[in-house]
């Protein structure tokens, strides 16, 4: 079984909201000082989904694929330390500032170059732009079926059986291999990297691919199909919504007094 997992590096989405800043002139997010980027959380769950398959089918090979520029090695190698086998990076300024379209296109070309795959896993959405499109896009470029928002992925007999989360439960879906599945947090906690895994990951060198002819360390894409130049959407404006902070803190001698005072205050204000 050959599995490819697409893993994106993002600014830490759990950083305190107060540390979040936008540079409105540049239409860009200013990375908060001292907060390290992370693997997008749903992508970590996608890695976990792959590892659960590998736990049962030992001859499984897991390759993770990341596109970006200046990828932090300790961050982007995390899937390796969790147990993935190989890492491919599309690392070049030309890949930067893409949208779902140009990112999915470049990733699909890299996947074609990797060549053999039975299953491709993505996160349901990247925790920076929250789009949730790249998985579907890769599948469409490769001409394979796609199942989104999975909480369970099992493979066997040439097909994948997927539990897809819906608004009020889930549905069980069967898809022929190869297929692409996007993974959601309902899958469960990703495993921790054990010390042995971290040491093994430290020794592994990523393959780094650039745009080019497809030969050597390049994938077959032209510069106007990828990154900012390959976009089909335009970011007109990025801004932070203004919030008026005006919480009325209700106090009391004891927590119980405060609770009673709150109830009375809510009644007065006709909230209840």
């Amino acid at each position, binding site marked *: 079984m050959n599995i490819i997992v697409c893993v994106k590096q993002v*600014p830490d*989405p759990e950083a305190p*909201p107060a540390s*979040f800043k936008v540079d409105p002139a540049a239409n860009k*997010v200013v990375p908060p000082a001292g907060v390290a980027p992370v693997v997008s959380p749903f992508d970590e769950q996608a890695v976990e989904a792959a590892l659960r398959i590998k736990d049962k089918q030992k001859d499984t090979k897991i390759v993770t694929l990341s596109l970006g520029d200046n990828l932090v090695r300790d961050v982007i190698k995390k899937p390796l330390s969790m147990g993935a086998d190989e890492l491919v990076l599309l690392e070049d300024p030309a890949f930067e500032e893409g949208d*779902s*379209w140009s990112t999915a296109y470049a990733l699909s070309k890299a996947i074609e170059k990797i060549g053999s795959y039975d299953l491709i896993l993505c996160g*349901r*959405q990247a925790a920076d732009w*929250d789009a*949730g*499109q790249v998985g*579907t*896009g890769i599948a*469409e470029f490769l001409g394979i079926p*796609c199942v*989104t*928002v999975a909480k369970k992925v099992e493979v066997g007999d040439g097909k994948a059986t997927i539990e897809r*989360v*819906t*608004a*009020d*439960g*889930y*549905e069980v*879906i069967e*898809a*022929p291999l190869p*297929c692409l599945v996007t993974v959601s*947090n*309902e899958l469960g906690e990703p495993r921790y990297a054990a010390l042995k895994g971290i040491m093994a990951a430290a020794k592994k060198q990523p393959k780094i691919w650039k745009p080019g002819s497809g030969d050597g360390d390049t994938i077959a894409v032209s510069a106007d199909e990828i990154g900012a130049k390959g*976009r*089909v*959407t*335009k*970011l*007109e*404006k*990025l801004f*932070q*919504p203004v*919030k008026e902070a*005006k*919480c*009325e*803190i*209700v*106090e009391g001698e004891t*927590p*119980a007094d*405060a*609770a*009673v005072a709150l*109830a*009375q205050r*809510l*009644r007065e*204000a006709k*909230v*209840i």
Partner: protein
Amino acid sequence: MADNNGVLVCGEVAEGKLLAITLELLGGGRKLADELGESLSIALIGSGVKDLAQEAIAFGADKVYVVDDAALKDYQTDSYAAAMDAVVKSANPRALVLGQTSMGRDLAPKMGFKLKTGVSMDCIELSIDPSSKALLQTRPVYGGNARAIFSTGGMPQIATVRSKAMSALERDDSRKGDVVPIEGAVDAAAARIKVVSTVKEEVEGVKLEDAAVIVTGGRGLGGPEGFQELEKLAKTMKGAVGATRPPCDNGWVPAAIQIGLTGKIVSPDVYFAVALSGSSQHMAGCSGSKTIIAINRDPEANIFKEAQFGVVGDWKQVMPPLTEKIKELLAG
């Protein structure tokens, strides 16, 4: 491309009724179409959906494209995409608008890549640029910490819209419109993926999306017992119980009651936020509430920047007397 015209809404039907989000999209779509001076159409895709065409017209549609086929009983990516493709070819719209629902999340990107055009997911506002007639798509990004406005190069311009971001029109049965059946769009045999079974995880009591009062608990409740306390307040106020993600991930409560960016979007009159920090991803699902009331032991918690009323304290000491007092006030 120049002849793309009008706004097309993708309708959704459950249990023989148009979903609330569909009525909202018709309301919002009507405004966009009027601004453009063009027409509003809707695609009704499913099995036994043609009877709903008049209702869609009563809620604002000028034209209803119906793809009614037994093979479309349940949502399935390939067959619905084929049906939608046939409607788009026929309607040739300038904009295609779907709900940010289980189906919209799946179908919108599929249509974007199929039709080679851009998609904006989970928009909270759509407007028309008066000079270029471009659809401007506003969506929260970075977990709700920022907003982005996008435009699309290709046609149709595709967007999904968050529930409750637009409002439905009053039903007007005197409105007139055309119904256009589309035949032969679906080849059931071509569907690559198969829905084997559907499992509903019923949550008892008032539905979250309909509740006027929601009592939501976070990681600080420490376990399922904490939610029993919230249940009492919810019951007293005939409301529903919600949760942030950690209680769902930990199995304290069913995943279906998660509120937030990747959970349910709610906008009740009263939202109690108990022992939750107020992360941007959680607030994405509840910031439309009329009044937010925070109970948290940390005075620095972000939720106090979002709430209108708050008590700083341990929920174990605050919730029981709060519930008692509210019960007394409501009875008296």
